[in-house]
C-alpha cells in the first residue's frame, strides 16, 4: 500500500520535474530539476527490483553527467539568463525542506545503523529472488562477464574513443 503510494509519488514528481525542467529559462535551474527527475526515476528503478541500476543512475547520471553539464555552463558563463528561476521564497522553501528531509534520513542511518529495517518492501518476483541469492550486484554482473563479455569490451573501446574525441574537439587549436 505504502509502496504503491511511494511509487506513484515518484512517478508524479518525475513528470512534474521534467515539465519544469523543459520550461525553465535559466539553464542552471534546468540542470537542478533534471537531477530531481533522475532521483525520482531512481526511486522507480529501486521499486522495480533494479537496485544496482538505481544506484548507478544516481551516481552516474545525477552525479557525474549533471556535474559535467554544470561545469560546462559555468565554463561558458551561461548561468545568468534569469535568476528568478532559482532564487526567491519558493526555491528556498523547496531547498530547505529537501535539506531537512536528507538530514532526517542521515540521522536515522547514523542512529539506527545500516542494518535498519528496509523502508520499502517489494512484492516478490523472480528478479528479487535472484538478487537475494546472488547479491544485488552479482545478478547484473554475472551475465555481464559471462554472456556479454564482448559487448562489455566494445563498450570499453567506445569510452576510450570518446575520451580521445573529447580531447581533440575541445582542444584549443594552435595557430
Amino acid at each position, binding site marked *: 500500500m505504502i509502496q504503491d503510494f511511494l511509487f506513484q509519488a515518484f512517478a508524479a514528481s518525475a*513528470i512534474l520535474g521534467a515539465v519544469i525542467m523543459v520550461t525553465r529559462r535559466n539553464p542552471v535551474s534546468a540542470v537542478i530539476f533534471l537531477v530531481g*527527475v533522475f532521483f525520482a526515476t531512481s526511486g522507480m528503478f529501486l521499486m522495480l527490483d533494479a537496485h544496482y541500476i538505481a544506484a548507478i543512475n544516481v551516481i552516474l547520471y545525477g552525479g557525474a553527467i549533471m556535474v559535467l553539464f554544470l561545469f560546462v555552463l559555468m565554463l561558458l558563463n551561461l548561468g545568468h539568463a534569469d535568476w528568478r528561476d532559482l532564487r526567491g521564497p519558493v526555491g528556498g522553501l523547496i531547498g530547505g525542506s529537501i535539506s531537512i528531509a536528507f538530514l532526517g534520513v542521515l540521522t536515522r542511518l547514523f542512529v539506527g545503523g545500516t542494518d535498519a529495517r528496509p523502508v520499502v518492501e517489494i512484492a516478490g518476483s523472480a528478479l528479487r529472488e535472484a538478487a537475494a541469492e546472488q547479491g544485488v550486484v552479482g545478478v547484473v554482473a554475472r551475465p555481464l562477464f559471462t554472456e556479454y563479455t564482448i559487448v562489455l569490451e566494445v563498450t570499453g573501446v567506445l569510452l576510450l574513443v570518446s575520451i580521445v574525441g573529447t580531447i581533440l574537439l575541445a582542444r584549443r587549436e594552435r595557430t
Partner: protein
Amino acid sequence: MAAALGLNGLIALFVSAILFSIGVIGVLLRRNAIIVFMCIELMLNAANLSLVAFARMHGIEGQIFVFFVMAVAAAEAAVGLAIIIAIFRHYEVVDLDRFRLLKW
C-alpha cells in the same frame, strides 16, 4: 501481460512514454543547445525506465541493456559538450538558431 507487469510496471511504462514525449518537445522547441542536450539525456532515461519495467517480466537482460545505455550516454555527453565548447569558442553563443552549417 498486464498481470505479469503489475500496476507499478504499467505506471512505469506510462511515465516512460510521457518523459520521452517531454524530452522530444524540449529538443524541438528549446533553442539553448545545452538544454537540448539535457532533454536528450531525459529521453535516454525514459527509455531506461521502460527497459527496467520490462526486465521485471522477461529477466535480467533489460537491466544489462540499461547498463550499456548509460555507458553510451556518458560517452555521448562528453563528446557533445566538447562540441558545444568548440562551437562556443567560434560563435560566442550556444543558440541553435545561429548554427546553420548543416541546414539548408
